[in-house]
């Protein structure tokens, strides 16, 4: 058994369907993509419903946010206005209808549509996630390959233990340590934020308005602003990226070792292909396929990690904002943002599965 990607969870209802060589008419990529696409909808429905049920089981959001600050009469009036005194099923259907129209609700504390909040702060999170992925790639993949090549020797042992440590370290603790050492003790890098005030003013005056600070900084044409933005990004990116790098390292190592043990590599070895070339040409590419899947799954992990990293470094992105709404007990905002994130996760997973299917024919059925 050398299938590199996932197999045999055994979901297939009929064992007879596994007969080798048998192809269903109209099967193949198109059918797979269609089924996979249709599967998005139940996934989103389940997640969104879970969020709704959980949030509504605490009572209505108006009381949670404003209870104690308004008289009971005012409170009842607000609840009635917002429709939280209607039957739950009706509220649920309204909520689903809103989501279909792209309406995830309006925050109570600052009265903004959740989608607008997402657009405002999403770019910051996207930027952070990109930096983190970059760190993860640059650190994780070459080291994973190195560990596989030096299997069971000192290098491999060190790398593997480091990967486990990276996995076991909460991202915010890593962030705090980095901050302590590089910002406070050594004074090399800024403590928090996405840019210093001066740079932000420069970007507002002269730069573009994409919300991705690196682009905005470059568009000012001022080298100091770019350096300032990059300096602010280093620590958050490393803190969040190292976690993912550990995952990549283990994955690359395991897969390269796995594919080095396959029949075709063995065949190449018996033909006298040198060991280095086996690693570089034969075992390497198939080992990378699962990484595509994992990158997609890391999006979910990065989102959760971003909540923590952004709080650690006061990086004003989605996660930072989510925590602010949580502390303000603005549960409409929380519900909307979490539901929206669920949709993003479901869509990303779809895209990743499609890419994986295009790259590796074995994924399709």
């Amino acid at each position, binding site marked *: 058994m050398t299938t590199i990607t996932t*197999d045999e*969870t055994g979901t297939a209802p009929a064992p007879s369907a596994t007969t080798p060589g048998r192809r269903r008419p109209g099967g193949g990529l198109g059918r797979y993509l269609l089924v996979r696409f249709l599967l998005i909808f139940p996934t989103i429905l389940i997640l969104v419903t879970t969020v709704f049920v959980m949030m509504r089981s605490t009572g209505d959001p108006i009381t949670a946010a404003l209870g104690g600050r308004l008289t009971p009469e005012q409170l009842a009036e607000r609840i009635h206005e917002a429709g939280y005194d209607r039957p739950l099923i009706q509220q649920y259907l309204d909520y689903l209808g809103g989501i279909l129209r792209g309406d995830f609700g309006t925050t109570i504390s600052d009265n903004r549509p959740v989608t607008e909040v997402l657009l405002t702060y999403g770019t910051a999170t996207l930027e952070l996630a990109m930096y983190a992925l970059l760190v993860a790639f640059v650190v994780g993949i070459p080291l994973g390959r190195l560990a596989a090549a030096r299997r069971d020797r000192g290098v491999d042992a060190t790398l593997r233990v480091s990967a486990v440590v990276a996995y076991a370290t909460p991202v915010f603790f890593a962030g705090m340590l980095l901050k302590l050492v590089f910002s406070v003790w050594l004074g090399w890098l800024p403590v928090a934020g996405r840019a210093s005030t001066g740079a932000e003013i420069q970007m507002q005056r002269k730069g573009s308005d994409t919300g991705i600070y690196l682009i905005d900084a470059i568009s000012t044409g001022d080298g100091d602003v770019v350096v300032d933005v990059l300096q602010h990004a280093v620590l958050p990116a490393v803190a969040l990226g190292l976690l993912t790098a550990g995952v990549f390292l283990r994955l690359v190592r*395991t897969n390269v070792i796995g*594919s080095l043990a396959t029949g075709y590599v063995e065949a190449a070895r018996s033909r006298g292909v040198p060991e280095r070339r086996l690693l570089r040409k034969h075992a390497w590419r198939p080992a990378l396929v699962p990484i595509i899947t994992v990158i*997609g799954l890391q999006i979910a992990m990065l989102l*959760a990690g971003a909540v923590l990293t952004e709080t650690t470094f006061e990086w004003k992105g989605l996660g930072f904002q989510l925590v602010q709404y949580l502390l303000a007990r603005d549960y409409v905002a929380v519900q909307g943002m979490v539901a929206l994130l669920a949709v993003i996760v479901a869509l990303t*997973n779809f895209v990743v599965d499609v890419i994986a299917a295009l790259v590796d024919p074995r994924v399709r059925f």
Partner: protein
Amino acid sequence: MATDTTPTGTLPEHAPRWKRLPVVHQLRTSVGLQRGMLVAGLVLTAVFVLTAVLAPLLAPYGWAQLRADGELFGSHVEPSSDHLLGTTVAGYDVLSRVIWGARTALYTIVIGVILSIVIGVTLGLLSGYFGGWLDRVLVVVADAIYAFPSLLLAILAAIVISGGQSSMWGGVMATAISITVVFIPQYFRVVRAEVVRVKGEAFVESARVVGAGHVRIMTRHVLRNAVRTLPLIVTLNACEAVLTLAGLGFLGFGIEPTAAGDWGYDLHKALADVTSGIWWTAIPPGVAIVLTALGVTLVGESLNDLADPRLRTRRRAALVAGEVGTTSVVPGGVLAAGPEGVDGLDALEGAPPEILPESEPVSGPEEDR
């Protein structure tokens, strides 16, 4: 992959029972680095459990103690002989809170793991055994929830259970339940896949022919053969529990300092200290989290490597070759993750193609090349 799934396995019958216990057995067959990692993991885990159990004896002060002999500890006192790790901004003794925090973490792990095992295994068993539409629905639901960032679910659960203001049990239960929600799909998938495989085996069929009922077949024949993969997932589950508890605490949803020691809460408070260069409030609870998570992860990682013949350290391979069948914690691959093994757990967080209701297993390499 090991296909030997007969109930007895390949270990000689005369081996004492304790030597056949999951972790003990792996410890005996491991060598070199893998043994080192497994031992290190077991030691760290043991230290953690002992600290939690013996907290009243070990901790110099209570978790919410502010004064001794009628005198206040004071805020941000540097480490000294009175306070080995100093005091926090609120004037608690850091060392004591770290020690008591182990207790809270242990409660969370135990409750979270037990809840997820009971619910996940039951659902997986029923779903895999009976199949049908219920099975399909459960698979889709499990995958949907699996894809969701666990910390976000945990935040929602914390709001639902404790309104965000935590007593000790409120915080512990919020974390434990959110961990359960996130981990049920993992247990579900592993057990279900195994059950689907095992129920086609001859001994199940013969039990049915003899006239055994569904309940008896499920509990006596199928279940016992379907749960061998669990030790591995339990360790991941435990690690996730520690990290989620810490994450919740860090975001300000931790357990109130008067209710219990909570590493995450302490780090939440220490964030501001770090900026002013105060290290002793941040590093001790953080290191405690890392060591605890590291301990259980190392155990899990080693179990996974020992389970996969290709990853097992090769020296002495001939000696253990005869025991491959039983060392395989993961017959058929962890969650069918194939050679990725435990990493496949990460790899499977999405809705991977093999769970499509219409899908069929890959029929083997010959079709692809």
